[in-house]
C-alpha cells in the first residue's frame, strides 16, 4: 500500500479543522478505505474527544515517533467504523518534540498500512504547522466566511504554495439565510479572494455541536447537512470528480415561494 498524506489546515483556530478531519476521515473509511487520522496539536489534543475515543488512549503519536512504543500500539480503532484509526496527540509535550523530518519518516511507515493519512494541523504557522505540512502530499485549507478567517487562510495558502503544495478549499459554517440577505460572504466571494480550487461547501449545522457532545461523527447522523457535505468532500478526495459541489440553500418558506412566483423575490 502507498497511502496518501493529506494535511487539513486553516491558520486561524476554531474554524472547524478538527471536526473536518474527523468527519472526512470517517467518510473515507465508510467508503472502504483504510484511514488514519493524526492529531498534530501536540500539547492541546482534541481530535480524541471529537471522535469519542478519549478513554482509550494508552500511547500517543509522540511515543510512536520517539520509539517508546510500536506504531500499531499508538493507533486507536474507532468505536463504530472499522477501518478508521486515530493517532492521538500527546498532552504533556509541546510542538518542539517533533521535527518535520521525524514526521516524514513516521508518515512513510503509515503509508504502508493506510490508504489515507489525514493530519489535523494545529492553528498557527509555527512549528506545529511545519511538522504537519512536511510529510503532506495534498492540503485542504478550511475557512469560514469571515474576514479574519479568510485572511489567515490566504497566508496559509501562500505558505503551502511556497512548499509546492496546491491546496484545495473548504468553506465551512455557511449560513445560507445570511448569505441571501447580503450579511455573509458567499462562497463565491471567498473563492474570488483566495483564488484556489474549491473542494466543498459545508453549511452551519446544529448536528455538529451534538456530534461533538456525543463523540459520534456527524457523518453517521442521518439528515446532518454538514455530515452529507463532508461525505461528498471525501468522495471528491477519493477521485470522484463527478460529484458536484452543492451550494447550501435557504429552506424556502411558503410565503417566499409565493413571493417568487409573483416575481417579487
Amino acid at each position, binding site marked *: 500500500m502507498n497511502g496518501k498524506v493529506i494535511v487539513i489546515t486553516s491558520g486561524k483556530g476554531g474554524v472547524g479543522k478538527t471536526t473536518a478531519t474527523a468527519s472526512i476521515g470517517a467518510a473515507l473509511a465508510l467508503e472502504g478505505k483504510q484511514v488514519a487520522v493524526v492529531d498534530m496539536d501536540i500539547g492541546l489534543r482534541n481530535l480524541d474527544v471529537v471522535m469519542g475515543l478519549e478513554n482509550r488512549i494508552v500511547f500517543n503519536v509522540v511515543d510512536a515517533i520517539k520509539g517508546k512504543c510500536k506504531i500499531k500500539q499508538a493507533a486507536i480503532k474507532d468505536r463504530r467504523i472499522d477501518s478508521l484509526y486515530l493517532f492521538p496527540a500527546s498532552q504533556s509535550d509541546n510542538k518542539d518534540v517533533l521535527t518535520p523530518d521525524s514526521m516524514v519518516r513516521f508518515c512513510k511507515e503509515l503509508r504502508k498500512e493506510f490508504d489515507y493519512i489525514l493530519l489535523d494541523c494545529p492553528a498557527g504557522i509555527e512549528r506545529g504547522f511545519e511538522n504537519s505540512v512536511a510529510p503532506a502530499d495534498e492540503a485542504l485549507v478550511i475557512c469560514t466566511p469571515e474576514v479574519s478567517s479568510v485572511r489567515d487562510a490566504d497566508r496559509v495558502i501562500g505558505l503551502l504554495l511556497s512548499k509546492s503544495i496546491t491546496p484545495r478549499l473548504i468553506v465551512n459554517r455557511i449560513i445560507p439565510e445570511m448569505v441571501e440577505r447580503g450579511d455573509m460572504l458567499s462562497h463565491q466571494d471567498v473563492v474570488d479572494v483566495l483564488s484556489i480550487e474549491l473542494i466543498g461547501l459545508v453549511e452551519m449545522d446544529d448536528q455538529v455541536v451534538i456530534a461533538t457532545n456525543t463523540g459520534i461523527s456527524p457523518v453517521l447522523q442521518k439528515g446532518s447537512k454538514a455530515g452529507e457535505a463532508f461525505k461528498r468532500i471525501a468522495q471528491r478526495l477519493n477521485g470522484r470528480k463527478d460529484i458536484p459541489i452543492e451550494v447550501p440553500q435557504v429552506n424556502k*418558506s*411558503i*410565503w417566499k415561494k409565493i413571493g417568487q412566483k409573483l416575481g*417579487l423575490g
Partner: protein
Amino acid sequence: MLNGFTQELQRIFQGIFGKGKPSSKDTAKNRIQLALICDKLEISEDILKNLQMDIVEVISRYFEIDTQAIKLDISKAEGKSALVVNTPILAAKRQPLPRPEPIKAPRAKGR
C-alpha cells in the same frame, strides 16, 4: 412562516424605495481585499536580504560601492510603498563588467 412573510415585505419595500445601506458582506469583501494587499507589502527579512544581495551584485557591475554600508528599506506613506536603496559610491568603473547569464530559478519562492 410569519418571519418569512415579513422578510418578503421588507424586500418589496427595499425594492420600491431603492437600496438603503450597502450590505455588510460587501463591506467585508472590501476590507479583506484591502487587508490582503497590505499584508503582502510586508516583505520578510529573508526576501529583503536576497533582494539586497542581488542589487549589490548589479550595482557592483557599474560602481565600486561599500557593500557593507548599503541600506535597503521599504517606506510606506499614504497607502503607497517605495523601495529605497541607499549606498555610498566609492568610484565609478570605467568599463562595466559584462552581464551574467540571466538567472533561471528565482531564489525565493513567493506567490
